């Protein structure tokens, strides 16, 4: 879950002790993300999908593409909506019911990462201006929790969108009608990749696992695009970063982001 779980002081001091020696509790280097495995087309009936395992955190994203009415003042733009839900089976502390602020933050940060990078060009999603547009819905669910939902959800959404096939619609009698056999790849312009870093004591670690997430003082999620630009950022947690730390995080996010981008690209190709 995105909020702090109860961690005993014993574990936090263990983590700090190891960090002082340049080590992490699971043996990774401080700037090393966990093993990332992706299964594309996990939900064949959706227009695109991906099942992501980042360490023991697991998420599934399904993309549905269907005709929709445009927003009132945006008749020349299609719709892109990204949601995230923390499923109660993912962790014993997750409750059913309306999403809490942590989950809402998670969904909005993942959405912004994709939206601000302009990965999906909504001006290409118009069927008839002011009347009918294409709606692209990327819905993410978290199935198993072990820290860093921001990145696990972001990778699922990005890969699912890269994997997506968009049907073609034509207006007939004022209604969008499916044109059989005219599917194409969903047009995408870039590959946004988020990298989340946590500050524990004076150390910055990349891709915190569940125990590190519960011990951290603050965190920042930075999303970069295929050109190496930073397109979205979100800081969270109860402490603060120094300027130097944030600059370092920016650099880490570009470097690590580039490596992960290759993984996402290769995974998407396997569809």
């Amino acid at each position: 879950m995105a909020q702090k779980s109860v961690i005993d002081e014993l574990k936090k001091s263990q983590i700090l002790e190891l960090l002082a020696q340049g080590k992490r509790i699971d043996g990774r280097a401080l700037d090393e993300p966990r093993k990332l495995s992706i299964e594309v087309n996990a939900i064949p009936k959706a227009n695109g999908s991906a099942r992501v395992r980042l360490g023991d955190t697991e998420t599934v994203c399904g993309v549905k593409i269907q005709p929709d009415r445009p927003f009132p003042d945006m008749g020349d733009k299609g719709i892109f909506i990204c949601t995230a839900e923390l499923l109660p089976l993912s962790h014993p502390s997750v409750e059913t019911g309306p999403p809490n602020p942590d989950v809402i933050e998670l969904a909005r940060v993942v959405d912004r990462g994709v939206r601000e990078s302009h990965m999906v060009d909504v001006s290409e999603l118009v069927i008839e201006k002011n009347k009918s547009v294409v709606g692209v819905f990327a819905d993410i669910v978290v199935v198993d929790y072990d820290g860093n939902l921001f990145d696990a959800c972001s990778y699922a959404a990005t890969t699912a969108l890269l994997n997506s096939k968009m049907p073609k619609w034509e207006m007939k009698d004022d209604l969008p009608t499916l044109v059989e056999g005219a599917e194409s790849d969903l047009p995408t312009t870039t590959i946004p990749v988020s990298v989340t870093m946590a500050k524990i004591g004076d150390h910055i670690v990349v891709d915190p696992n569940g125990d590190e997430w519960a011990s951290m003082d603050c965190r920042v999620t930075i999303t970069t695009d295929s050109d190496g630009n930073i397109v979205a950022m979100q800081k969270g947690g109860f402490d603060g970063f120094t300027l130097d730390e944030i600059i370092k995080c920016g650099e880490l996010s570009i470097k690590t982001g580039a490596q992960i981008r290759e993984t996402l690209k290769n995974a998407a190709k396997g569809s």
Partner: protein
Amino acid sequence: MGGRDSTMVLLDENGIRCDGRKIDEPRKIMIKAGGLKNADGSAYIEFGDNKILVGVYGPRDVHPKHMSNTDTGILRVRYHMEPFSVGERKNPAPSRREIEISKVIKEALLPAVILDKFPRTAVDVFIEILQADGGTRCAALAAASVALADAGIPMRDMVAACAAGKAADTIILDVNNEEDQAGQADMPIGYMPNLDKITLLQLDGVLNPEEFKKCVETGIAGCKIVYELQKKALQEKYFQNGGDQ
């Protein structure tokens, strides 16, 4: 469950159904016990094109306290469909259909679970439909039973499940989505195979008394097939060196 469409060919002259199956043939089924790291028990099922994940927590504390029972543990079931699981994207908020199915599945599991040794606790069953293609409640119930066994929740029997129905005036086993939309009856059944008890039974459609009897019998035969796969799933996880320890 949609209107009846008379144009689709549900059963051809050779007795073959729209997806190539014979009338007493279930879809391809795969069940796996375990798989989730945090849940106390879990299971995953693919039943035709249905893909369903179940996680179980418990026995565990009940919040709010007033919902707990001082004599016995309580069972809670949540059947939930992901927005991307169906043809037209579904709103994430729980629908009345999901709430009804949650209740029906809970009442199919209650006769099997033994919770009187866990007063003041709850056992939570979370069913997530990742992809739906007709018959999700039966597939979900079968997986839930495996997840409960995986969690070590005491049960007097497993609960298997399968649907039977009628299409083109013929009783068929395991109704798929097209047959559900265009056929004449759909009867999901939940069944405890050793105690020989039906714990889930619903019907949507029209059956005369003979058809009704045949439909139930066909469904139970399907449940027995599913039961063998539930056993296999647990054996594969727990009894790896087979036979004796």
